[in-house]
């Protein structure tokens, strides 16, 4: 190897690293994202007590109705849940979305009081007080939201609160029958 070419080695290394950093910045890559293995697979099992008194328990059948369904894990103690709540209210009222709410690690009376105060966008509401269903769904915390198609296949998994942009770009097209 020519000795002069060797001097280019540090420069080439720098260029390689700069390229990687630039790509990381621009490709919208989030190194903190842990992704989801749920997407593309049948929704995990659903077998929960209803949150609202007098409602029927939640079962798998709710996820295989032929209609796209949104499943949202929330808790009254969770601030980001408060932030995304108006979006679910609008999705339910204006867009007629079927939304299943699951109160995660939340005392049922507290979750009920929270919904009574803020409005209840959930067609079905369940309680996962001990977090067992959360583990089955690969949940890392609240809020998390799953989009499930009519055949019960998970099509999208949001970790963290949904935003106006998620509603516009992903959720509404999904509800209209397209894949997000």
């Amino acid at each position, binding site marked *: 190897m020519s000795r002069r070419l060797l001097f280019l080695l540090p420069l080439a290394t720098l260029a390689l690293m700069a390229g990687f950093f630039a790509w990381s910045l621009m490709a919208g890559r989030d190194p903190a994202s*842990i992704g989801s*293995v749920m997407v593309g697979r049948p929704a995990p099992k659903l077998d929960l007590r209803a949150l609202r008194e007098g409602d029927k328990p939640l079962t798998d059948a709710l996820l295989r109705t032929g209609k796209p369904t949104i499943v949202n894990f929330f808790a009254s103690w969770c601030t980001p849940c408060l932030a995304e709540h108006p979006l679910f209210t609008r999705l339910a009222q204006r867009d007629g979305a079927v939304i299943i709410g699951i109160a995660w690690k939340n005392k049922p009376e507290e979750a009920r009081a929270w919904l009574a105060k803020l409005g209840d966008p959930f067609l079905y509401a369940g309680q996962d007080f001990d977090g*067992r269903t959360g583990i089955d769904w690969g949940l*890392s915390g609240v809020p998390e939201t799953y989009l499930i198609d009519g055949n019960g296949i998970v099509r999208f998994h949001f970790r963290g609160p949904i935003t106006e942009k998620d509603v516009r770009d992903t959720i509404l097209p999904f509800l209209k029958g397209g894949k997000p």
Partner: protein
Amino acid sequence: MKRVLILLLAILFALPALAVDPSEMLKDPALEARAREIGQALRCVVCQNQSIDDSAAEVARDMRRAVRERLTAGDSDAQVFDFMVARYGDYVLLKPPFKLGTLVLWLGAPMLLLIAASAIMLTALRRRATAPLPPLSDEERERLRSLLGR
């Protein structure tokens, strides 16, 4: 001196506090030991590089419980890992699996070492392979003597 020694020993043998609290532990010590081993190899999904045994996060606690429930139900260690990977992906393993996507991760450093070592070897060999200089001719020796002023 003795006090310092005791302090040093205390520091040396101090174990990191685990988040596993006694109420979670299994009665069967063998099963609990397996749960610990598995718990230390599973990543808490909301922490930065902490195992579920080290983390006080809610979800880490639930994962520890799930591990113990699987073990009690008679699962092998591999089945417990599969259970977690099916829900949280490879991310949940603190030791990433060896597969196509992680090839660079596993082999990158040894490959670099190999390349560097062979480069050094090659240079050394080439240096040794250089033929020794031919002895000075009479003319050159004469010139050298005049240059040195003798």
